[in-house]
């Protein structure tokens, strides 16, 4: 039995067929070619597959593909607008907030989700919000700084 899914991904209508037990992560990567969303654990512990589902931050490995019918999914591929990077993406580059970069898509999506509803977070708020995203390379220092700087940028403040 396959399931027919009609959904919106990165502001574009999408249709696909999937197995009932297939995760959103598998569908994004294998069926739709959206490999920016990474699999680090498939158990919801690492955050590498973070996406927004109707604006809410979720790990795509814990969502069934069939569940996104009629809903809106945002992946890392949809975070930039045209040729303009999201401030989080720009600040990650400027602050050298990535090394190997495999956790970066998850962090970009998670940080965007934070700044969507709080454009002036404290360092502690950033650290707790991002506690669901594992990074093994950076020790988080430059990531936290990049997110705080992106928030300032979005508020029109220079730090």
């Amino acid at each position, binding site marked *: 039995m396959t399931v027919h899914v009609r959904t919106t991904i990165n502001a574009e209508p999408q249709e696909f067929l999937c197995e009932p037990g297939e995760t959103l992560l598998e569908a994004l990567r294998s069926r739709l070619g959206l490999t920016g969303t990474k699999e680090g654990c498939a158990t919801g*512990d690492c955050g590498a597959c973070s996406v927004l589902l109707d604006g809410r931050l979720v790990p795509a490995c814990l969502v069934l593909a069939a569940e996104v019918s009629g809903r809106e999914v945002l992946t890392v591929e949809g975070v930039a607008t045209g040729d303009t990077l999201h401030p989080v993406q720009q600040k990650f580059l400027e602050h050298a907030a990535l*090394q190997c970069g495999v956790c970066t898509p998850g962090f970009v999506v998670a940080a965007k989700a934070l700044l969507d509803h709080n454009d002036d977070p404290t360092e502690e708020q950033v650290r707790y919000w991002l506690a669901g995203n594992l990074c093994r390379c950076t020790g988080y220092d430059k990531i936290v700084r990049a997110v705080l700087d992106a928030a300032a940028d979005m508020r029109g403040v220079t730090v």
Partner: protein
Amino acid sequence: MSTATKTFEHVGTRPIRHDGLDKVTGRANYGADYALPGMLHGYVVRSPHAHARIVSIDTSAAEAMAGVKAVVTGSDIPKTNAKLVMGEAALDLGAMGDNALAHDKALYEGHAVAAVAATSPEIASAAAEAIRVVYEPLQPVMNVDQALAPDALILHDGMVTKGRPKPDAPTRTNVALRMELTRGDLDKGFAGADVVIERTFTTPMVHQGYIEPHACVARWGEDGQVVVWTSTQGHFVVRDCCAGILGIDAARIKVIPSEIGGGFGGKIPVYLEPVAIALARKAHRPVKLVMSREDVFRASGPTSGTKIRVKLGAKKDGSFVAASASLYYEAGAYAGSPAGAGAMCAIAAYDIPNFLVEAYDIVVNRPKVAAYRAPGAPAAAFAVESVVDEVARRLGKDPIELRLQNAVREGDQAAYGPEFGPIGLREVLEAARCHPHWKAPLVPQPGRKVGRGVACGFWFNAGLNSSATVSLSADGSANVVTGNPDIGGTRVAQALMVSEELGIPVERVRPIVADTDSIGYNDVTGGSRVCYATGMAVIEAARDAQAQLRARAAKIWDVPVEQVGWERGRAIALNGASGREPLTVSELAAKLMHTGGPIIGSATVNAPMAGPAFGAHICDLEVDEDTGVSRVVRYTVVQDVGKAVHPSYVEGQMQGGASQGIGWALNEEYVYDAEGHLQNPGFLDYRMPVASDLPMIDTVIIEVANPLHPYGVRGVGEVPIVPPLAAVANAMHDATRVRFTALPLSPPRVLAALKQRG
């Protein structure tokens, strides 16, 4: 602080990395992101037993299933005695092949015994379940004490202790190697000591914890040509390992590296690649293999659990007079722990006239260990730096002062043999002593104790072999090609080196990591060697291109090439040719096709030596005495890096290494039950630091130029994981007055010790 005299125009700046855009937008391709037309999905069958003889494997039911295209077992991997030389070490390809698919025995839980390729992942996993493996379970040997017991089961019949076994060592053994380093007269040394501290320490097996699981795709062509796409720290080594393991000609294998999602040493060995090739050969279709996170924990290459006894003697004035240490390292299922490296690093920071350090490499029924950032050194430093801390307390000395008093300096003979050239240990310790962190008062919060610890760390760093080319375009831009997967920003560093030599803006230099067909040989990305050794190849290649540019200028000016110099990216006329306006790279490049054609600079490097490096870390730890939970509240990393090419990524290495070490100290450990089943093969229960666990990590870059490198560069990536285990444990002692000798300092262990202390 800098002792480097050379001034730089580009090196030392912080441009945006060239590969950054693809990584923040999700476009960068990692190992699991590759797919080929007609590709099959593989699944690996793994042993549920930690130690078992494989009696039989029946694959017939699996092979009969619709959609199953190939099944392989150990019989598809020839047994071999071949070795692959890598620097002074050699990879045992027989063991690596047996680890990829077991031949006779399963040696740890998760050991691969068979693999399937099928048209979908679901069919592949169903077929894997249909494979009938009959095991004869054996008693597992899970740790050093069990492996050394007189009645211990022997993992490998015929194992003999290499190196310098003790005369009375048993002939049937799990000890693969014993080595020792010795100097002076140990008994006399200890007899002259006023204070002697002796302790035995243990550290658990831990994992590198890279976020990207191992993944590869292999294709076997009708003509026998093989292509492998894989996430690896060294695609040339993947090529040569696969050739040796499978008994095929390396000239038939092309390996294309993906972006690599972390490695830290764990992506040097091959696990999946030979299996994927064997499946692809049988199936006549490309095959993809991806490890699950559980597979990564159970069956890749974590680092050794250790047991280390240290004895240190000092005079009242603080001078160290004698030291002895015995280091026992679990190798996992096959010989090859970093015990020897641990022994060589153990007391490398100190000038001690009398010592004996011995190391044992011991096989146990756990996954075969792989390199993990300064392999062997963190556990050794935990033991030695804890004892140094205790000596300081006993003598009432400041722990940094005591270290400075005994610190090695240029000209000293290192405990591991060679004479030190210029080294920065004293500069590092002095910077730590002057740092505001060291002087700041400790402020306990209500209900919590707070303490401060300090520790040193040392790592040799590696040189090895590298190749690079630098090609100029007619528009004055360039590309720089090497063969080292870029784990942490080495491409932008290499581009900066080309900028420095040729005067081309860094954004007009394109750095590329090429596959095994497209660039000369490069050893692995490891040993903190890429910025150093491959960097040297890049600088030499750029200088080769620069020499060719000077020759073109000479041609344009119609003067002998000796009368053309090079300064800040321009050819300049020297004595005898003066009066001519300098020619920039762009001007020379625009005339390339009229002055002799394209220019490619190339260079290879064979660097037997590197610049050894030291660091010192300061840690403030807050401990909740009611729950045993502790938390790092302030942390400072001071390190001699020789020369920071891109300081942001140097700081990143220092911060990342420190946080891995903090995780090792506080929470991370492999937990096995008595039967050898791993109890925590996931990120929920294998607890790595998350953002809310850590403070900002302050960094102090010290630059004592390494004379072996044209810019003074030393390796950076490994040193920072060496001090944290001891820095955290010393802070814990400062906070609680309990000397912890076993890691991790997890809440239950801390709580139990505090109860015992009363």
